[in-house]
């Protein structure tokens, strides 16, 4: 484990879940609110729901902000979080383990220019918040500034993931049939399946942000994930694969249609591998299927467009705003507003409004993704990309749902245009170096393309390219945009946040494929 910058994205995994990587929560009945029995209220009467949830009131918050500003600074905020999550796992035919997790705490941030002081505590007492605030204040060294004299809840937030029934109203016994049903259906569908693992998670989260401008922002953030993985055997050969769906959705998401799709995809993506041949090695045209291929955008341009790297001059995109970097039919956005998407947010973790940020407009690099520090640095409005893993971490520019808008080409036309290359369908993870611009993504399912047709399946191959060069080489974009429904998690600087991605069918004229099938030996070129 080295502590250097690390930028990676992957599909949520059970391994991560059992290690506490995925947030898991508490049990059965209605969500327990943290008890406030031991809290002595301030003189202010509690006015909104945060008092009962966090056991704090306006007076305590104002005092905390005043302590945070005790050595001067431009800005201070408190980020209260209560997150209750549940996980159920089926293995060897039984739902025989559950994971639960309760997180409760507050992070105090003090900002001076682009310098950050940060501290947090899990003890929501006046004294503990004061200590944390004084610790964070150490980033500044000037005379004290007064905190806000009053706090006010601003305009109503957009509601992008309202649930009919919140997860704390769903009993475990209601969830068990989902896992049992998926397991039975998979075994019934294909006799070659030998092992099935099903992981189900749900999360009910609440955040409260209070800042030195006197803003109060509250949001409730649900999340759910269903992850299925199978192992199949045929003729002494073993293959494994799976499928997962996720989003800020409720129990009603798990309709027979959703379950059916998860089962079909998990089986199909596993059993097709028995026919897989080794992928080739070397440069060739690559067609990316609509949907989770959006991982290319996340790695090739998304991270490099996070404004913290650009403010520091370390991103390969640091001097490219306003410059053409792709064909005019390439448009890329980072969007907080996709209803119920895993990467949707009603407000960012600094309390700033979150909408749609245009990264690439008709092939021209348009806007970086900002948090409040970088926005101030550039003299711009924040874009609502300030996100954090939890109260234990300060926010920084992060993606939400990153996708490319539809283009002028047809899917079949794109595939038919390639004489020899590969077609990529599903992925497990990717990574990028934001300065050099080199990035990779790992393909779990794909096909060879020979003479314009999909032929043999391929698997387990890494694709490696350079961000700006690959963007230039996107020479066909389909009309068939799909926002992927998978459980993607983005890691940066040891913080993980949930994200979404999407893309229409796209052709990259040439990129390095890291296969085992020997070298191509020739420069296969795209037609048309």
């Amino acid at each position: 484990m080295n502590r250097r910058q690390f930028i990676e994205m992957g599909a949520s995994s059970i391994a991560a879940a059992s290690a506490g990587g995925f947030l898991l929560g508490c049990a059965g009945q209605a969500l327990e609110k943290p008890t406030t029995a031991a809290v002595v209220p301030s003189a202010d009467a509690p006015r909104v729901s945060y008092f009962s949830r966090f056991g704090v009131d306006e007076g305590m918050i104002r005092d905390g902000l005043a302590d945070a500003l005790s050595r001067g600074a431009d800005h201070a905020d408190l980020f209260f979080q209560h997150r209750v999550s549940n996980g159920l796992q089926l293995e060897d035919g039984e739902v025989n383990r559950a994971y639960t997790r309760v997180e409760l705490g507050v992070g105090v941030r003090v900002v001076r220019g682009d310098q950050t002081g940060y501290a947090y505590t899990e003890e929501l007492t006046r004294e503990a918040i004061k200590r944390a605030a004084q610790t964070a204040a150490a980033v500044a060294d000037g005379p004290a500034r007064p905190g806000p004299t009053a706090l006010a809840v601003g305009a109503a937030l957009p509601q992008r993931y309202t649930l009919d029934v919140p997860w704390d109203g769903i009993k475990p016994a209601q969830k068990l049939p989902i896992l049992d049903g998926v397991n039975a259906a998979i075994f019934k569908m294909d006799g070659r399946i030998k092992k099935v693992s099903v992981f189900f998670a749900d999360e009910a989260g609440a955040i409260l942000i209070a800042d030195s401008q006197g803003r109060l922002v509250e949001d409730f953030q649900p999340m759910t994930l269903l992850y299925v993985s199978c192992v199949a055997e045929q003729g002494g050969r073993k293959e494994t694969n799976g499928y997962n769906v996720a989003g800020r959705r409720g129990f009603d998401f798990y309709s027979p249609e959703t379950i059916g799709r998860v089962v079909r995809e998990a089986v199909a993506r596993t059993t097709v591998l028995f026919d897989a041949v080794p992928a080739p090695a070397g440069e060739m045209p690559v067609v990316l299927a609509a949907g989770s291929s959006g991982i290319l955008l996340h790695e090739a341009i998304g991270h490099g467009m996070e404004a913290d790297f650009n403010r520091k001059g370390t991103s390969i995109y640091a001097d490219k705003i306003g410059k053409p970097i792709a064909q005019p039919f390439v448009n890329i956005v980072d969007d907080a507003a996709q209803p119920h998407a895993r990467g949707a947010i009603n407000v960012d973790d600094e309390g700033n409004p979150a909408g749609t940020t245009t990264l690439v407009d008709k092939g021209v690099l348009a806007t970086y993704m900002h948090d409040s520090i970088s926005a101030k640095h550039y003299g711009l409005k924040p874009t609502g990309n300030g996100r954090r893993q939890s109260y234990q971490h300060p926010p920084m520019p992060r993606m939400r749902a990153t996708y490319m808008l539809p283009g002028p080409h047809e899917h079949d036309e794109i595939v038919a245009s390639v004489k020899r290359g590969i077609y990529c369908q599903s992925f497990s993870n990717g990574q990028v170096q934001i300065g050099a611009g080199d990035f990779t993504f790992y393909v779990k399912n794909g096909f060879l393309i020979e003479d314009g047709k999909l032929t043999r399946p391929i698997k387990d191959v890494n694709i490696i390219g350079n961000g700006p060069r690959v963007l230039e080489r996107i020479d066909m974009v389909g009309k068939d945009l799909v926002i992927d429904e998978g459980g993607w998690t983005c890691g940066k600087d040891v913080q993980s946040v949930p994200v979404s991605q999407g893309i229409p069918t796209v052709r990259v004229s040439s990129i390095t494929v890291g296969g085992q099938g020997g070298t191509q030996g020739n420069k296969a070129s795209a037609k048309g």
Partner: protein
Amino acid sequence: MTNEAMLQIARNAVSLAKQKGAAEVAAVARVKRDVDVTWRDGKLEKITEATSRGLEVRLYVDGRYSTCSTSDLRPEGLASFLDNAIGLTRTLAKDPHRSLPDPALYAKATPEGLSMADPKIESITALDLRRTAQSMEEAARSVKGSEAILSVTTNGYHSWNETTQVHSNGLEASFAGTEFSISADVSIKDDDGRRPEEGEYAWVRLYADLPDAAAVGRRATERALARRGAKKAPSSVMPVLIDNRAAGRFLSYLLRPLTGAALQQKRSFFEGLVGKPFGSDKLDFADDPLLPKGLGTRPFDGEGLAARRMPLFEKGVLKNHYIDTYYGKKLSMAPTTGGSTNIAWKLGPKTQAALALDVKEGLLITSFLGGNSNDATGDFSLGVQGFVIRGGKIGEPIAEMNVSGRHVDVWKRLIAVGNDPFAYGASRTPTLVFDGMQVAGT
């Protein structure tokens, strides 16, 4: 929060859960204090300082099992938390393989001389870390060629953590550990508009083992400057050296399928290979949780089992798996330990430079970029950067390339390991030399 207070919290959780109907209980209380200071281009960038605490409870109720964790340690919160968790556990399917470990396997006393925790941490402040980070930047900018530098980020970090574990069948144990780390990352301007970044870091248990901060800063710049003009080379099968700092990542794909879970769930290419030759005779290492000052050192594992050295490969033959209590029962195998700690290699006699001379023509991998490995089949494909080896010498830098293969083939081609175990990671990997690997580039 003191050790005594955390012990009390863990004991309370165990007795409360038993009162509420759990047959057996394990409780693990953890406290961690972190100080993290980042310095960039002449000023403080970020400083984080906090103590966090948490409780994990594993419940065995009516033949069923669940685990839960909370950061809300107030006594009044714990009772309802456990009520809920026990209620949830009762809804699950029974699992005859779930139980606390056999108490005979528990740690009796912490072995002497592990050197895991350094009391000096008490006297090192955020200001000290800031000064160290500042001196690393100055050193990084003192290197010849530093006019190409775009940005230098340096970091000083330390943490103190304590684990206290109480089991209802007779375990009460705890241990503390410290970690100190310093790092420098340097971005430079390349002629083609790329901004390559490289860095140097150190990560140790005891403060006195940190190397000279200025040397770390200088080395970061040297590494970054060496990346200038990196190009993609042609695809071919060639000998590959993996630098000791990078090799831990490659090794992790060998260790991952060695767990009982992977084996029992048919997600391991090691199925049925215990006692059989797997790699070349150079593949020879043990898992050693008792290594003094080791970053993976621990007196007992996550289940409370007493730590012991365990051979994994001897002359290429697979000797053991990582088996915990649960999967041990499912597999009818005796538990060893649930996961890897420090890896103690049987080292070779030569330096990396001497190994490069032997190889003559090939590739030196200095870092991996993304990629993955399939635990069930052993297929891997990994992005790489590094240097061409030409005439036995380190040549020009390469980027945007990839290596791929199958573990069952590749480890048979391990022809040498260096004498240079990497000190700043638990894997302690030496330079690894493979006599042929598929490399993809142009």
